[in-house]
């Protein structure tokens, strides 16, 4: 999978020429199009295998470490493959736009095994002086899904629609968040620790057998 994704990475076309002392040869001043990324979240109880092509070794996303890195992809080429969990298989065929960060969730779906949910983000808030926290919601059982700083009454994110995400830039402070469904606290606060300036974080609300569950991850790129 990683091999396939790496092969899809956009490579800028370069004009090769010897250096002239009087005039610099023409070179590209950027990529042909913006970068794009995809990651996978395993919200099921079984391991999730992401298979790019039949015969290739899968990329495994364990239930205990459920959020993968963001992998760079070529926005010109659809990301195709399949998601396999406990012998249930789902086809994947994604067109990812330049500048997009796409999160593919495998969430439990009763007797069907897993369901694929895709949430897209086109961030515009890159800032090395702030921490950036996103809230993803793929749990329809949590009404008016909101996140509050633990012990506070003000919402960090309010009534986030299912299968969507929102992001906020905040000061790099120590942060614990409390999930709120239908205006009532659900579960224990999730400790995000000391947020770092320039880092991007995701809090992901997923369904589980025991009710709404929060996952957290740093949005780390695979190099």
């Amino acid at each position, binding site marked *: 999978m990683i091999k396939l994704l790496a092969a899809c990475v956009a490579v800028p076309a370069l004009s090769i020429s010897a*250096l002239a*002392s009087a005039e610099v*040869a023409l070179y590209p*001043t950027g990529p042909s199009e913006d*970068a794009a990324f995809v990651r996978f979240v395993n919200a099921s109880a079984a391991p999730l295998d992401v298979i790019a092509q039949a015969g290739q070794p899968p990329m495994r996303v364990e239930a205990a470490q459920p959020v993968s890195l963001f992998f760079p992809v070529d926005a010109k080429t659809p990301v195709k493959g399949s998601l396999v969990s406990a012998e249930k298989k789902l086809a994947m065929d994604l067109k990812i736009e330049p500048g997009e960060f796409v999160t593919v969730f495998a969430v439990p779906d009763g007797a069907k095994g897993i369901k694929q949910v895709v949430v897209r983000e086109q961030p*515009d808030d*890159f800032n090395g002086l702030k921490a950036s926290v996103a809230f993803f919601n793929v749990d329809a059982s949590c009404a008016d899904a909101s996140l509050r700083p633990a012990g506070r009454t003000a919402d960090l994110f309010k009534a986030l629609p299912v299968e969507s995400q929102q992001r906020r830039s905040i000061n790099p402070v120590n942060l614990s968040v409390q999930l709120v469904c239908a205006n009532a606290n659900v579960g224990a606060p999730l400790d995000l620790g000391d947020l770092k300036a*320039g880092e991007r974080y995701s809090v992901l609300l997923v369904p589980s057998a025991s009710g709404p569950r929060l996952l957290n991850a740093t949005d780390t790129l695979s190099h």
Partner: protein
Amino acid sequence: MAVSILAGMTILMIGDSHLATPDYLISTLHDNLVAQGAKVHTLGICGANAGDWLKATPGACGGAERRGTEKAVVLGGKAATVPISELLATDKPDLVLIVMGDTMASYTKPAFPKAWLWQQTTALTKEISANGTRCAWVGPNWGTEGGKYGKTFARVEMTSKFLASNVAPCSYIDSLQFSKPGQWATVDGQHLTAPGYKTWSEDISKALLEAPAVKEAKK
């Protein structure tokens, strides 16, 4: 004359074409830093962007290297970046000075590649800061509009603003503050004439003395 805060400091300077021709910043800025008592190693690879410094990457159009008071060596077709991890290990610099911006502005494309720029800049600054090394990043100057690279004042301003808010923990040196748009003559929209490089070097040097990265590295 007072002793410069840069005296005794080991500086690694890396960047793009502005450092890759012997009479550009690899001459004027390098000389300026050496004259202040710094031990300077400059490596300029034409066309290089920030991510190219994570692994050895051939230059798009040559390069040059210079150490201390030696003359700059033109690298020609063999020019390639050296991974920043190797440079940090061998040079053990007190300060990394990065001169880059024009190679990442996408002047001829309507869309500004924010995600790519973020990927590029953070990959490099994280590697430097993980090593515990201070750094300062010199952003692009105004240049002149047009030319073969299609530079525009609007896009260079956008690029500079992006870098200013995304190169932390490196200090940012905003070259747009040094002149008015189009004030410094260029040969092709991007590369300055000799007086321009001299002025740019002097302005960078002054700004560097006030940069938090330099003051902290000296503590």
